[in-house]
């Protein structure tokens, strides 16, 4: 690392020496793999629906470039600025989500998007990092001062977000948000009895979702009884993985992208499996695992409870999303509309993930002046 000297005190240089370069590198690797896979998977999908072959490629490359600027920009912020950013993110996203219910673009039976010229914005993606940081903040305040109604505030924030998500409806996202909130509550020292109680509530919520939402019910029924002959995408995805074998059919040789409507989005891992094989797929899984665990390890030694809760929450959100996406692609769980962060096509997802990761990087920067004092 001779580009920047330790003694250089410029902003960029200070950032470089204090930021978690391992995490940065693995995120870059994930994004690079995502760029390759979008090149492999999306032209077939674009041609099928009558767009220019590289329609999705061009857009995703722009999103990834913007994402990197965002990661860098956000990771420069101080802890206090991160909290401010979280308030803005959460507030703006909640307002837009409320608006989506009235002016949203409906697609596949859910109103999640707002049209902004050539770009459709999915505000709920941006609500997630904001919520995670705010919840961490509230939990911390409550832990340090019992008179502060931190738990109550965090619960209200959570209830507001999940009810808006369920109104869209976006059950998958609601589950991720609930799980993250649960993890944060758990880390914040929730009594074990309550941990159990919340687990039961989640279970009840899942069962409730099964009965309340038709599409949730069909998906789960299909998962439990594949002989019904449905679950087309999952079946094709499994065939693709099988075709791929150890080293894959080779770049561009895949067939699954020709038939899967979501080959470039939710089912992109199937394209990776078919064209690049088992080894490449395992590398992708390993990279996601590394990012999550690296984040955890990084805050394990940190003395700031807020940072611990916030970063763990951000990582948990990133990890949950990856796990749910992968697990449904390989038919371990019922299919759930969930993007694979930084790999699946999608602007809102890429940019919101960039904010999340930027926040995590900002919070985990080495702060010699803070650590170990007081």
């Amino acid at each position, binding site marked *: 690392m001779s580009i920047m000297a330790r003694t250089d005190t410029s902003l960029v240089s200070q950032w470089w020496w204090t930021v978690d370069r391992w995490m940065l590198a693995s995120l870059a690797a994930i994004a690079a793999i995502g760029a390759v896979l979008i090149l492999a998977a999306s032209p077939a999908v674009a041609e099928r629906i009558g767009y220019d072959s590289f329609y999705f490629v061009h857009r995703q490359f722009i999103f990834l470039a913007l994402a990197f600027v965002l990661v860098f920009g956000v990771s420069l912020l101080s802890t206090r600025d991160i909290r401010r950013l979280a308030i803005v993110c959460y507030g703006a996203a909640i307002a837009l989500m409320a608006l989506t219910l009235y002016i949203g673009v409906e697609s596949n039976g859910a109103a999640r998007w707002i049209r902004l010229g050539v770009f459709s914005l999915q505000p709920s993606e941006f609500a997630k990092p904001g919520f995670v940081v705010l919840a961490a903040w509230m939990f911390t305040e409550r832990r340090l001062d019992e008179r502060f109604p931190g738990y109550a505030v965090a619960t209200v924030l959570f209830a507001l977000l999940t009810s808006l998500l369920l109104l869209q409806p976006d059950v998958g996202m609601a589950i991720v948000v609930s799980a993250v909130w649960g993890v944060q509550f758990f880390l914040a020292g929730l009594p074990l009895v309550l941990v159990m109680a919340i687990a039961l509530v989640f279970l009840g919520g899942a069962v409730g979702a099964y009965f309340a939402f038709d599409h949730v019910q069909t998906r789960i029924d299909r998962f439990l009884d594949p002989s019904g002959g449905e679950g087309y995408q999952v079946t094709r995805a499994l065939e693709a993985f099988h075709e791929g074998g150890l080293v894959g059919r080779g770049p561009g040789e895949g067939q699954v992208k020709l038939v899967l409507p979501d080959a470039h989005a939710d089912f992109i891992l199937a394209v990776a499996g078919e064209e690049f094989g088992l080894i490449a797929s395992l590398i992708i899984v390993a990279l996601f695992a590394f990012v*999550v665990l690296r984040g955890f390890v990084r805050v394990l030694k940190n003395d700031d409870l807020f940072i611990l809760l916030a970063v763990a929450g951000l990582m948990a959100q990133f990890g949950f999303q990856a796990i749910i996406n992968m697990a449904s692609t390989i038919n371990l769980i019922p299919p759930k509309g969930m993007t694979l962060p930084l790999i699946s096509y999608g602007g809102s997802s890429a940019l919101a993930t960039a904010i999340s990761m930027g926040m995590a990087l900002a919070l985990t920067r080495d702060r010699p002046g803070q650590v170990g004092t007081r």
Partner: protein
Amino acid sequence: MSGDGQLKLQAPKSRQSPRQSRRIRLQGIRKQALETGRNRLLVTGVVFTLAFLVIAGRLVSIMTFEQSGEPHAVRSAPSRMNVAVRADIVDRNGVSLATSLPIASLYANPSEVSNKEEAADKLSRILPELKRSEVLAKLKSRGGFTWLRRNLSPKKQYEVNRLGIPGLAFKRGERRVYPQGEAAAHVLGFTDVDGQGISGLEKQFDEMLSSGETLRLSIDLRIQDMLRQELTETMDEFNAIGAAGVVLDVDTGEALAMVSLPDFDPNVPEKSRGGKRFNRVTKGVYEMGSTFKLFTVAMALDSGVATLNDGYDASKPLHIARFTISDFHSKNRWLSVPEILVYSSNVGAALMALDVGATVQQDYLGRLGLLSPALIELPEVGSPLTPSVWRKINTMTISYGHGIAVSPLQMAGATAALVNGGIRRPLSLLKHQGLEAPEGERVLSVATSEQMRGLMRLVVTDGTGKNADAEGYRVGGKTGTADKQAGGKYDDKALISSFIAAFPMNDPRYVVLAMLDEPKGTKETFNYATGGWVAAPMVGRVITRMGSLLGLMPQLAAVSAEAKDRRLETY
């Protein structure tokens, strides 16, 4: 993990200012909270690690091992199992009458079709017989499965495949094809959309055919086609509502041809409901009329009640109970037994039957197979209608074919027994295997059979059957014309006109029967629509054409004239 929230650090009470004590306490709470957080973060990390490991393990398992239990195997298994091909049906010479072609049927899983409008557009363009609105409605239905189009040709299947619409799939199957169309429709029957025989031989031999065993019929397609053509022309000529024809081999009981008109195309059975599917040869039973006199004479001769030299008084109509029996071609005199047949005298036949007696009559009719359903390998077999109480009047009317209704096939089968030496054999639509004639039951003496041959020949040379005399084939036969019953009354305008023939009479090999349902007379026939005018000429033509098809040389001029003279002398 400890119940941390409850733990309170005891702050030292003295020597410290409240502010100091609060700060130390805060420090303690922070430490405690951090400790809990760290411990629990470790647990969370372990859970995440496990989740990622499970995913990695699953990837390894599906990408490196055979996926025997995977859902996609379950999906494709049934379609591969469904390829056992239904066997062909061929005629006696091996010409294909029914065969199965592999086809694909298109269905959709509506929930998997992403762009339904576009899919409906493309499909209705490639398959013009599908309406776009109907396709769209099907694709928008909530069910998980909907047929779009059965029986696609390979070319259409390729084109639909090339559209690359997700959610569409094909079920492989087979389609029954009848290359000869209507030719043997009633014999073959047809299958339903699932390939199960639901009528005719397809039904009778359903199990055998589905297990792949080819069915070889006794039918000779050449004769079948020819008979059908002649019957169709005759039916049109005389404006009849239906017709039936059958050709039997008298020694084996095999049916060489069996035609029922009107008929249908078994390739598209759904286009012809009801009447056209009715098999007049086996299922329909009719009062056959005078052709029955053959049996009356045969039983009289065989039982010894009468000889060829005996005679009966046919000079005036018979009055019995409220009925009157009279003759159509009345000679107003005593008639010898041969004359009763040649001039087709109802009165003579009735008197002869009275001599024979009801019991013997029933016995002979029963042994000739006229009182029980025809024995043939078809599900569509009609039961004869016979008197419930066999009175004297029944015996008399049955002697000339009224008051009893039998199927044309029963009629032909009984006639075969009359001329083949007196043996009744089971009839069959399957080709006879082996050289030996199938076992039969003797119903008449050889001598009686010989006499019947002569009498039948006489009917053609000198009687009502002259129009059937195919030159050189020594045709013998009997005309039949019966008034159809309608509402309990006989209608003399609605006739069943038939001719039953056998040839060559010196050593009969084939029986030919033709029957017209409600023929109307024409100028050429002087408005007669009787068996002699309608059916006999057609049978004559059929026999001539059969001769050339089967390579039977006609015995021309001198020989036949000689034979004719000799018989005239005799009778």
